[in-house]
């Protein structure tokens, strides 16, 4: 099961990027070629493919929602 996650591009290597997600985890070799991202961009990643690029404001809003979903998932 995959989930669409929002993170920040922390490094680039050609069309692939290392993306750091809001929970502190990261994923390397994310394909960002469809969204034209660069270092510092916020992207929505599904599997290992970036599907969209977000503004910093939108990323903050999604970060808040992400925090809630993590909290809900951890609840008994």
């Amino acid at each position: 099961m995959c989930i669409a996650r929002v993170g920040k591009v922390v490094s680039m290597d050609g069309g692939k990027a290392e993306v750091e997600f809001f929970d502190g985890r990261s994923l390397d070799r994310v394909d960002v070629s469809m969204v034209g991202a660069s270092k510092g961009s916020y992207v929505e990643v599904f599997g290992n493919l970036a599907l969209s690029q977000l503004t910093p404001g939108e990323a903050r809003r999604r970060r808040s929602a992400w925090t809630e979903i993590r909290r809900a998932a951890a609840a008994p």
Partner: protein
Amino acid sequence: MKDDGVLFHAKHAYMPNFLGYCGPDDRGRILEDLQDHRKDEALVSTLRQFEAAFPFLRLIARSTGRDVFDYSVPEAYWIGNGLLERVPKEDFYNFSHRELRGKDPREVRKAFKGAGRTAIPHHTFYVMSTYATSSVADGPSLSNTGAKKVTSLMDDCRISWGKVRRVDGKALLVEYSPVELVDGSIGFGKPRTKRVAYDSAVRPFGEVKKGDEVSMHWNFACEVLTERQVRNLSRFTSQDIDATNRILGSYSRRG
């Protein structure tokens, strides 16, 4: 709790977790439990930490009066069964806004508006509708230049199924029908074979043989399916494809 449901769920959740796409960051643990056929509270705790899969199980369980790990619940989510039709559409819509909060609400609205009553809480619908509603520079993902890339990933991310043609060391050669994009719509392509990983220590793969039908997730063989499960997976995947094409059609109608 019906234990088989825990292991059935774990088999299908394992590979995307191993790849780092979802769930907690203890990637080898699920496979160790599967190899040992161990279904304890620690595994349940791990599975509860999947940010999307577990909320979907909760929705199906809540709407149908089942335990969340009753075998029929993860079976409904990954494979499909009659429980999916007992989840009220309103429950699914509200769940998608309130409990899948990592998702963009605009994308949720697009998915439900396009799919209408064909939207079901089936893993493949979640996968396909997410790809179909995520916006990139020139519109929905499936109608832009990255379409082949997207459909290939969609094919890996959905639960697919196929017939084992050869058991070959640590891999199975499986004949299956890929999901492809043709003229702006998705559908099943011509059958082809591909190699998928499997683990003979995970039951019942020690006895897997030519002719068996298996479910696959991210090129990993998850489970040997019954005839009923193959029929259901085929039926509900076809429904998901139809729903996704409706979503894509709603974009083109809007112009």
